[in-house]
């Protein structure tokens, strides 16, 4: 088990929304919980993963996701059971698609 934390800047702050949960905790899969975060200029990521030693890939996946969506004021929690980066990106994009945006 490994825990990774990231906080990245984001220009797109979002209005209040109900917490969003996508995915399931199962082998090769993950659960993504997206909630309102305290800092409107940042998005925080808290990752618990069963597969240790992939910090660099997680950083790349998270940076790429944040670059695409520029989320601010959002907190993302991930519970991972060895999902591939493909599955992680898909789940994150699925969650992001459900976040209401400021026009």
């Amino acid at each position, binding site marked *: 088990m490994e825990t990774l934390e990231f906080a990245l800047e984001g220009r797109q702050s979002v209005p209040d929304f109900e917490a969003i949960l996508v995915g399931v905790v199962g082998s090769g899969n993950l659960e993504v919980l997206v909630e309102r975060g305290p800092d409107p200029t940042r998005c925080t990521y808290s990752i618990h993963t069963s597969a240790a030693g*992939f910090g660099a*890939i997680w950083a790349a*996946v998270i940076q790429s996701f944040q670059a695409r969506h520029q989320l601010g004021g959002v907190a993302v929690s991930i519970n991972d059971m060895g999902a*591939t*980066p*493909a*599955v992680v*990106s*898909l789940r994150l994009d699925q969650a992001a*698609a459900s976040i209401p945006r400021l026009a």
Partner: protein
Amino acid sequence: MERVWNSREISRAERLRRAALRLGAALVGKQVAADHVVELLGAVIESGDRVCLEGNNQKQADFLARALTRLDPAQIHDLHMVQSVLALPEHLDVFDQGIASRLDFSFSGPQSGRLAKMVAAGQIQIGAIHTYLELFSRYFVDLTPRVSLVCAQAADAQGNLFTGPNTEDTPAIVEATAFKGGIVIAQVNEMRGDLPRVDIPGDWVDFVVQAPTPNLIEPLFTRDPAAISEIQILMAMMAIKGIYAEYGVQRLNHGIGFDTAAIELILPTYGESLGLKGKICKHWALNPHPALIPAIEAGWVESIHSFGSELGMESYVRARPDVFFTGADGSLRSNRALCQAAGHYACDLFIGSTLQIDLNGHSSTATSDRIAGFGGAPNMGADARGRRHASPAWLRAGSEARQGRTGQHAMPRGQKLVVQMVETFREHMQPAFVERLDAWELAERAKMEIPPVMIYGDDLTHILTEEGIANLLLCRSDEDREQAIRGVAGFTPVGLARDHRLVENLRDRGVIRRAEDLGIDQRQASRSLLAARNMRDLVRASGGLYNPPKRFRNW
């Protein structure tokens, strides 16, 4: 001294005479009692002979393979084995025991690890690793078998053979052997007075043995839809919208993995929603894949010619003779050699998977400790240089490759679409994209003349990953090509080392297309798109005609 022009004929007569002598009453006409099979082989095989053992992709002449391992290596040794697939332990035991020494083959799936060890230990000398069609071709040129050991469902007293749906390699093997002074021995599951149909005429067959147990056969093409992932569905959506619809692909071959099964299973749902029915996927060179049942039932498919059959699909095929090639008896007639030719010359697209792709687009399933071989993928996944007929998909691919080019490339000509569909990471986080193929290391270790490449980069037209599609036809330089590949390689080291500016430029040029560039909403990539979500759904879709093997009956 005058040259003898019929030495093979003389040798053949001598071998047949020996067999008659040694077998005595155990030989009745062409029929040999099962408990005398080793004597039969000992009588007709001589040291140094080239022997073809029918080890197919699916059915196996397993009884004859076992008998071959029981020969006395003091009497018979240095056999040169030629066979398309090494599937059974016995296929390598003959080398372990000093009966055979040389091997020419195509594919070694289950035995690939042991084969690599035996080659390293000097127990096996490999002539070459072939594609199926290439090996069959050599049976008629410089690898003609002296003795062939084949497999059929039934025989009659005259030696006529009924293969049932899994005809597979038998016609090619028997023709090469019987018409060049060789000897053909068939193991059969039953002797019958009346055969449902004749697949191999009796005068091409010298001996038939009824095996004590039915021949082994593997359901290699059954994929349980329950195991298909959302990533595979996303990739399948991109294949249909970004390639099949784009080029209007009507004639194609699919590989055997879950990735292509996902495409088959979303044709009647996603494909239908795009209005593509009748516009793509009408004609197939394909085994009877259970995953294609929903598309067939929905009226997508006009014809399917098959390399082999698939266990459990017998009644379904029998009930759909407009779609499948069937005999007068109603059952499937397959033929690996002809279907490989059909896939090579008459299909506009091949889509399959691989273990590794390098920065030039070469792909390989070889790893440093396994000699797996190729099977049919290189015949399907190669431009047919001898093709001369046009089709819209072929012309479009050719014109993309030739656009703006001069000299000999200015001549209008089409090209086959060859697609590798891979997730950027395979299981255990093994990257599918590499700087250097393991095939190089294997070639060094096993002293091969060339690295075993499954599909060469110059034949590959598209790479499809969860990150998008790279259209290599539109690349105009080595740098284009490298960045196009890096640009769909995801978070693998190869993908992370991309030049972001060049990749965005390739995206602007349409060389790289992401799901959103194709108008695909990733949220739609869910298992609810599958026309069948499990084995039971496939049975239901077939109207109860599909009868899955026990191991797949999981409900």
